[in-house]
């Protein structure tokens, strides 16, 4: 059963140096507040997992939290490159970053397998691409048709972190709108941390809602605005101007560090 905890305490208890950590949220409901708390607490040697690493992963990588990145598409959506990710890969700054990359279909299959207790998931893909040489994927043969498909290993993070609109007092969580792989990130992880916009007396059923029972979650943390500068459907819009500004801020190492010091490290709340 989920404990309702302050975010700082939850990150301290759940996220350890060297852990495999997945922060999910497909453009929508990206758990920035939790990611910033991981940065503030100075976690190191993390294996960061995420289908679509974007600005929050650029920040984690640039601040030296990550040893490895498991991903399928890493960019600033609609803007361009992630300069801190590129600097780590291209110039080992602030340290080398190991990559394990998949296609979206492969990552989604890995999460699906992890949530299902299966050791692997399947994709009809990878064949003929150079990805095969640079990632964890193996051909398996269908015993009925002889067709070769690709097996991708289950994703089983130590900690899964997502942001949702609402929790109730018992720690049950509901999110709605675009739900990405958030359910899978929680169910595939050994420990799960969910930040929420608000705690409400009753979670009213809604169209497109994903419900996560409190007994699948380790800690629920109240973090209003915790997805900014991404958005929370029904609460606030995406701060598109921020994503454009990030392109400037993140190009230069010093400017990046100054910005992070001012807006993340020395603050107790997430920048807007």
């Amino acid at each position, binding site marked *: 059963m989920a404990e309702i905890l302050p975010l700082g305490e939850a990150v301290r208890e759940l996220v350890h140096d060297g852990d495999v950590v997945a922060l999910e949220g*497909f*453009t*929508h409901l990206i758990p920035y507040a939790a990611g910033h708390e991981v940065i503030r607490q100075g976690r190191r040697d993390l294996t960061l997992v995420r*289908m*679509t690493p974007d600005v929050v992963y650029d920040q984690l990588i640039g601040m030296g939290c990550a040893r490895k990145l498991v*991903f*399928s*598409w*890493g*960019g600033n*959506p*609609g*803007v*361009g*490159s992630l300069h801190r*990710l*590129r600097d780590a*890969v*291209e110039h080992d700054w602030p340290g080398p970053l190991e990559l394990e*990359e*998949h*296609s*979206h*279909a492969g990552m*989604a*299959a890995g*999460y*699906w397998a992890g949530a299902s207790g299966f050791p692997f998931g399947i*994709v*009809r*893909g*990878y*064949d*003929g*691409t*150079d*990805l095969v040489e*640079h990632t964890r994927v193996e051909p398996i043969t269908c015993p009925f048709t002889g067709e070769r498909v690709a097996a991708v290993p289950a994703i089983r993070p130590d900690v899964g972190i997502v942001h949702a609109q609402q929790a109730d007092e018992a720690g049950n969580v509901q999110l709605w*709108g*675009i*739900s*990405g*792989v958030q*359910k*899978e990130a929680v169910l595939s992880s050994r420990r799960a941390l969910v930040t929420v916009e608000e705690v409400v007396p009753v979670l009213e059923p809604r169209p*497109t809602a*994903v419900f996560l029972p409190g007994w699948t979650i380790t800690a629920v943390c109240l973090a209003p605005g915790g997805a900014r500068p991404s*958005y929370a*459907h029904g609460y606030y*819009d*995406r701060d*598109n*101007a921020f*994503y*454009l500004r990030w392109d400037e801020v993140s190009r230069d190492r010093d400017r990046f560090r100054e910005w992070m010091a001012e807006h993340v490290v020395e603050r107790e709340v997430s920048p807007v």
Partner: protein
Amino acid sequence: MSVAAPTYTADEMMAVAAARRLQDGTVCFVGIGLPSQAANLARATHAPAAVLIYESGTIGAKPARLPLSIGDGELAETADAVVSVPEIFTYWLQGGRIDVGFLGAAQIDPGGNLNSTVIGDYERPKVRLPGAGGAPEIASWCRETFVMLRQTPRTFVERVDFLTTVGRPRGGGAGVTCVVTDLGLLEPDAETGELVMTELYAEVTADDAQQATGWDLAVAADPRSVEPPTTEELDALRALEPVAGETVVS
């Protein structure tokens, strides 16, 4: 830009050229940027029943303005259904239900193979690109795949630095059937599969196209000339633009 007539940009010409190839009722798998412009333009003009699927899980999205990201709230609000990302890539994409997938790329080779992973060596890249995303399975499992990218000797290369997406995959679809550039359109030769420049925009010559291509480009004997965007097309396209200050950089 030599091809840009005063009244429209190269991007607009590309969006219009791609939109025209979409028939009404076509089910499209769409990314952000030019593909989203093209598909929504088609929906706003000759193909009102075109179905837009975004990889964020929105099926039948009908945005009034162009979404700013692939998971924009507008997409969820206007969609017929919102499903999970694992479901989009299994039941919908690999299930073989999509007519046309759209892709971009940093490099393309004469076989339609795409690179969106790295420029240079994988282990020590000159430029680290975003990576595969949905591209490999889009090209494998949509009935057709349209690629949209600017035509330059750096993007149209004899051999891609990294083969992210196979141009003629063994999947259920035909692979890359059309490449829309800022000079015209290329289509694979029916026998060899090699991309042939089959359509050119107004004022673009075969020689312009060759100059912009890093291999010995095949040009159709009598390449069709593409009509410039009509006023209706441009009006519809511009009406889709996001509000000022929130320009999409594709």
